[in-house]
C-alpha cells in the first residue's frame, strides 16, 4: 500500500464506530467498496507491447518507477488472466485484428488503457495508410494517456485514474453481472482495406451512392 489513505482506514465507513484498538484490523464497509477496493489494487495488465510506448511501459515497470507499488506489476501474457489491456503504441490495420481478438478473449471485468497519441487517436502516423486512428474506433477505451510517448509518471497517473474509475462502479450496474451473455466485438476483416463488419451497411450505401453518381455523370458530360 502506498500510504495510509488507501489502507483499511480509508475503507472504513466512519458512521459506524469501531473501538479504537481495533481500527487497524477491522473495517466496516459496503460490499461495493470492498469489491472495488480489491479489484483496483490488483489490476493485472496484459503483457503486450505494440510500439515505442511499450518501452516506456517497461520503464514504468522497472525499478525506478515500479508500478508494483500500485498492485499492477503482475503482467500476464495470457488474455484469460488479465484485467487490463494497455494499448501501448501505434495500432495498425494488420494488428487491430489480433487486438480485437485478444480483447474478446479477456474475461470480464476488463479495462482498456490507450497509452500515447497513437493508441488514442493515430498520433504522428495518423495519415499512414496502414494506421488505425485510435483503438477506440474498434474497442471501448476507459482511460486515455496523452504523450508521445507518455512518461512513466504519466502512465502511472493513468493507472490511478483507472483505479478511480473502478472505485466509482457499483455491483448493481456493472455490465458483467447482467443476465445473458456479453456480446463479443466483431473481428475486423482484411480486404482491400480494413473492414469493420459493423459498417457493412454503410459500405453498401456508399457503393450504391457512388454507382448512382457514376451513372449520372456521363449524361452531364
Amino acid at each position: 500500500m502506498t500510504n495510509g489513505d488507501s489502507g483499511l482506514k480509508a475503507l472504513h465507513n466512519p458512521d459506524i464506530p469501531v473501538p479504537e484498538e481495533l481500527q487497524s484490523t477491522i473495517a466496516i464497509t459496503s460490499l461495493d467498496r470492498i469489491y472495488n477496493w480489491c479489484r483496483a489494487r490488483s489490476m493485472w495488465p496484459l503483457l503486450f507491447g505494440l510500439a515505442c510506448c511499450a518501452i516506456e511501459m517497461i520503464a514504468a515497470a522497472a525499478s525506478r518507477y515500479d508500478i508494483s507499488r500500485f498492485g499492477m506489476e503482475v503482467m500476464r501474457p495470457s488474455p484469460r488472466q488479465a484485467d487490463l489491456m494497455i494499448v501501448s503504441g501505434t495500432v495498425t490495420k494488420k494488428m487491430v485484428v489480433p487486438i480485437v481478438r485478444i480483447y474478446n478473449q479477456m474475461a470480464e471485468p476488463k479495462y482498456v488503457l490507450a497509452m500515447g497519441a497513437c493508441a488514442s487517436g493515430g498520433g504522428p502516423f495518423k495519415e499512414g495508410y496502414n494506421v488505425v486512428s485510435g483503438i477506440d474506433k474498434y474497442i471501448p477505451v476507459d482511460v486515455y494517456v496523452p504523450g508521445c510517448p507518455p512518461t512513466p509518471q504519466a502512465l502511472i497517473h493513468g493507472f490511478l485514474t483507472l483505479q478511480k474509475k473502478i472505485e466509482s462502479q457499483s455491483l448493481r450496474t456493472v455490465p458483467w453481472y447482467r443476465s445473458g451473455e456479453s456480446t463479443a466485438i466483431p473481428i475486423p476483416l482484411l480486404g482491400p482495406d480494413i473492414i469493420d463488419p459493423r459498417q457493412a451497411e454503410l459500405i453498401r450505401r456508399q457503393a450504391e451512392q457512388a454507382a448512382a453518381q457514376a451513372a449520372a455523370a456521363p449524361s452531364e458530360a
Partner: protein
Amino acid sequence: MAENPAAEVTTANPVAEAIAALKAQFPDAVTEDDRKGYTGIVVDPESLVEVATAVRDTLGYNYLSSATAVDYLGKGDYFEMVYHTYRVPAGGPPLVIKARTPRDKATLPSVISVWPGADFQEREAYDLMGIRFEGHPNLKRILLWEGFDGHPLRKDWKEAYYEQDQKPFDSRWPQGHVHRAEERNPYGKNVRYPEGFTLDDFTPVGEAPNYEGIDLGVNVQEMTTPGLKTDRLVVNLGPHHPSTHGVFRMVVTLNGETVEDLQPVMGYLHRNHEKIGERNTFLQNMPFTDRLDYITSMSNNLGYALAVERLLSLGPRYQPPTYRAEVIRVLMVELTRVVSHMWAIGFLLNDLGAFYTPALYAIAERELILDFFEAVAGSRMMCNYMRFGGVFKDLPERIQGIPLLANDRVRNEATLDYLANIINERLPRAIDELDNYLTNNEIIVTRCQGVGILPPEMAIAYSAAGPLLRASGVPYDVRRAEPYSIYPELDFDVAVRYNGDIYDRYLLRIDEMRQSVRILKQLLPRLRETEGQPIISGSKAYSPRVPEGEAYGRVENPKGELGYYVVSDGGQNPWRYHVRAPSYINLTALGPMTKGHKVADIVAILGSIDIILGEVDR
C-alpha cells in the same frame, strides 16, 4: 578479440575504376548515371544478373546493403531499382547499381541468386511499389496483407486521409484550421475502398498465404531415434507473444521439437514512414526517424542528417557541421549505443527464461542517460535532436530537477560533472557487473554456445549487419569502413568475435560497450575545449533548399548499418525517402539460423539478433 581493420590500402577512387571496368566488360548493358546529383551505373535489366555477378565476383562488391525502388512518375515514367553494394570487410564507398523498368511493365530480374540479402528487400519493393521480380522464390507481400488494394508507394496511389502531395497542407497552414481527418471520411476512419466494393461478394484472403508451401505432413515421419515417431506441426509464435520483441510473428514448422522451417511474418507495425516521409518537408522527417528504432533515436537522427547533408553539399552554400556539433553528436550516439546494447542483453536474458530481473539491472543505467537526453533535447526517448548542419540546442549548463515540495532533494549538477560521472564511474561499473554476472553463468553458456551459428560467408551474403555480422568474424563497422563525423580522430577498436553464435553476439555487445565508453572518455575533454562554440552551421532554416540528386547516408547503429536513401527533385519535400533498416534485413538470416535447432532456441536466437519492430516494419 578486437582488431583494427582500418589499415587496408585503397586505390585513389575504387568506384570509378570499378565503373570503368564494368563499362569495358559490358559496353552495351552498362551506362553511367549522368543525371545531375546522381552516381553509379544504370544496367540493362536483361543483363542485370550477369553484371551483378561480375560486380560481386570480379570487383569484390560482395555486400548488398540496400535495394529499393523509386517511382519516377512524370520524370521519365519508370521504376528504378537502386542497389547499394559495398566491399566487406575492406570498406570504402558504394558502387550504386540501377535498373529501370517502364511503369506499365514493372518487372525486373531478381538478384537474390547473387545477393541472398535481397530477399526481403525485393519483397518489400513488390509489396509497396508493385515491381515483380522474376526468379524470386517467394514473391508475396511482406508488410501489407495479400488482397490489399494497390501499391502504396507508387506516386499515383493516394491514402484515405490524402489531402495534398506535400506538406504543409493548405488546410492547416497558414490559416491554421484544425480539423480531424475522420470527419471528412465517409466511414469516420482511415479507410478507403475500391469503387463498387461491398461485403456481399467478398471473401477475405485470410491466413492461407502465410502457410503457402508448408508441407503440413500428415505422414508420420520416422526420426533417427528408433521407435520415436514425430508429426510435422506448424506453430505460430506471435504477433502477440511474450518473447517476440514486439508484434512480430514467426510461422514455424516443427518436426518433434526440431525446427524445420521458419517464416517471419511482419508488418504488424508498418507505420508507413516512407509514404509519410514523402509528404513531409525534409526537416519534418527528423522526428519520424526517432520512431524507427525507438531505443536509439539519437543515432537514427544522425543517419538522416548525414544523408540530407550529403544532398545539401551538392549545393553552392553548404557548410559542414561545426566541430562542437560533431562532438555532441558522437557523444549522443555512443551513449545511445550503450543504452541499446544494455537493453539487448537484458532482454536476451528474458528470452532465455530469466524473467525480468536481469533486464532490471541492465536498464538501470539507462535512466541516467535518458535524464541527460531529456535535459538536453526535452524528451526522454523521442529526442528529435539533430539538425542539418548541427544539433538543435547546446548542452545545458546544469542538469537539475524541480523541487515540488519544500524539502525535496532534487538533482542539481553541472552537466559535464554529471556526464563525467556516468562515463567514468557508472557505465564501466554497470558493464563489469553484467560481465561478472552473466559471462560465465552456466545456463547462459550452455544455452548460447554453439546455438544459432551464422558463418561469415553467410552473414555477408544475407546482408547481415552490426553485431550479427561482427560476431561472425567479419570486422566491418561503418564507423571505420566509411568514416563519418569525427570518428577518424577517435581511438577505438572494431570489436569482433569469431564463433557466430548467440554467446559471441552477447560478448560482442559487451566489447562494444567498452569501446563506446572508451570513445566517450575521449569526448569529455573535447566538450570542455569547444564550450561556447556554435552548435550549428549556417542558418537554422526550417525548410532548407535541397538541391536535386540522390544521397545514401549510413551510420553504424547499435543494431547494425542504418541507411537512408533520399532523393530530392529540388522541391521542399523528398521525392523518395527510404530507410535501410538493419533489424529488418538482419531477419533475413533468422530462418537459416534457426533451422535444426530446438523450438526453445528460436526466441533466444531472435533475441540475439536484437530487433526493434518500429524499424523492422517502419
